[in-house]
């Protein structure tokens, strides 16, 4: 891996997984223009939204939940090499 490059795992669940047809993939953040230390969840959403209209719609629904390394976070959470970032609708267990 090149110096300064950041690779993270993206996971999608429930209706999001279904709408986008993917459940898990690696994302290499050398594609992103910002310096790695400043890549936050909002930047990842923006990046993934460029994949198409259905991605843009799915990732910008108002009640989308983001979990970074298994913990729910706001969009200003900064992602680092090796992180796992998941997107999903509100949870409905129990």
């Amino acid at each position, binding site marked *: 891996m090149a110096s300064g490059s950041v690779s993270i795992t993206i996971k999608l669940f429930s209706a999001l997984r279904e709408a986008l047809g993917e459940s898990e993939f690696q994302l290499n953040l050398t594609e992103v223009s910002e310096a790695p230390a400043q890549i936050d969840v909002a930047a990842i959403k923006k990046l993934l939204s460029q994949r198409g209209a259905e991605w843009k719609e799915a990732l910008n629904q108002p009640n989308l939940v983001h979990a970074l390394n298994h913990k729910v976070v706001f969009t200003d959470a900064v992602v680092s090499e090796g992180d796992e970032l998941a997107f999903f609708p509100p949870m*409905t267990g129990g």
Partner: protein
Amino acid sequence: MSVALQSEAIDVAAEYAKLVRDSPGAAVATFTGYVRDHSGQQSVTELELEHYPEMALKVLEDLGQSATERFGLSGWRIVHRFGRLAVSETIVWVGAVADHRGEAISACELMMDTLKTDAPFWKREQGAAGEQWVASRDSDSARRARWQSGEAQ
């Protein structure tokens, strides 16, 4: 003091017996949730529970720990199922052991209320009208919020 995520039905009697054997105490409260045969006006014939295993484990373990700190529990257990569930089957079981009834019952209620909104499970119902993802309920978020505002104790 543990969490189980499983596809098989929950053996409530065995879970109870293990909880009180591992953590004897004067007050034991439990809650069991079963699959409803309806959802609003819709009939439901089957439920599928998708989950995010690593996060579900972490969230539920943190929940048991925080209930322990808040209510001084001597023991707790959370069992949650995933996969395909038929109507009337168990979905979730929680148990809490404390020295007094108020703590045990409140811990049970806190664990259930928090689990509903914070644990990464998603229900997909199958019924007469086809399949659909269950929408989250405002009443669940409201019950969850009571624990943070201090309204519930």
